[in-house]
């Protein structure tokens, strides 16, 4: 499992690949501003699973889990998060 700073860095890198010219922070509502779209979710889930070293149960996903980089860290930042 990667450390939280490593996961944060990897998420920033992933988001920046899709953000184009759109500025974002760790609090940006990434789906609302369309930096990320539904098509990115399967890939993002696999990335988080790899970074945290544990699977993500799709049935346990909740509204808001992917709202921002901070939200993703809070929800998936550790193997039991």
């Amino acid at each position: 499992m990667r450390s939280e700073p490593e996961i944060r860095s990897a998420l920033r890198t992933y988001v920046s690949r899709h953000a184009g010219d759109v500025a974002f922070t760790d609090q940006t509502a990434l789906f609302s501003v369309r930096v990320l779209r539904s098509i990115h979710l399967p890939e993002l889930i696999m990335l988080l699973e790899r970074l945290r070293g544990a699977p993500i149960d799709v049935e346990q996903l909740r509204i808001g889990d992917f709202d921002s980089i901070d939200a993703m860290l809070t929800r998936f930042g550790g193997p039991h998060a």
Partner: protein
Amino acid sequence: MPDLAALTALGLRWDAYGQAGLTGPLLRLADDLDHAFQQLAAQWQAVEERPPATLPASALTGHLRAFPHQATFAIGLEPTDTNLGEFADGPVVGPAGSVVLTRTGPVTTVLTPAACFHVYAQRRGTQLTEAAYVTTRTTCFRREQHYEPLRRQWNFSMREIVCLGTSDETTSFLAEARAQTDDFARRIGLPLAWAPATDPFFRPHRQPGFLLQRVQPVKHEAMYGSLALASANRHHDHFGSTFDINRAGVPVSTACVAFGLERWLYAVVDRHGTDPGAWPEIALPAEVVTA
């Protein structure tokens, strides 16, 4: 909970394939309810559109990947004399009721799965200069594993109000439409509760659309008990991009509110009983809500 005998006495004509015909009190109630939803749509000066029964399959590739189990295709026989002769001279229909097909022609159309798809397909490649509001009613077809009269049908009537605009315009539209739906339902004595919802995707865990519905508040359903009477759907720019519908150089955002008419019939009968004289007035509450 009204049973089939009670609903039949009120004008339901149910068949085992999951289809409902209407006459008598239920038909009048369905017309009144649809008129009420048209009145809601008039709040946005929504343009009425009456679409055809089918959509080109080429316009629904993504939908068919996501919901192949629900699709109903329009097919025909290969139109050669030989093939038509083989069909006509054969059993035509087998003992179990299945058509004994010979060679079929290319399948290019799908029976409408959702009313609003026509709104986007008919605007493919257009440029909008301002928000557009459309209302449409059509028969929708969705295959299911089981059917229940008025609650879950192979085909059913869907009235929709659709907004094509900016993100802010679609957000405002959904908020207002949900509030008006609540108000109308309350005035006819139907308690509704809006809840986040997901569509019944095929292999959902692999479907980006399903995953988005789990983590973003893009779909809500107005629940009467366990029955969804309406849904409010935010598509962002998905249909704007898919159908190349633009405004000021960017794909439009879209949103829709959909009403399943048969389910409203069920709810009214369930709530107010099988005596049509005890059913609520429909027209006046709709006028009050939209006044």
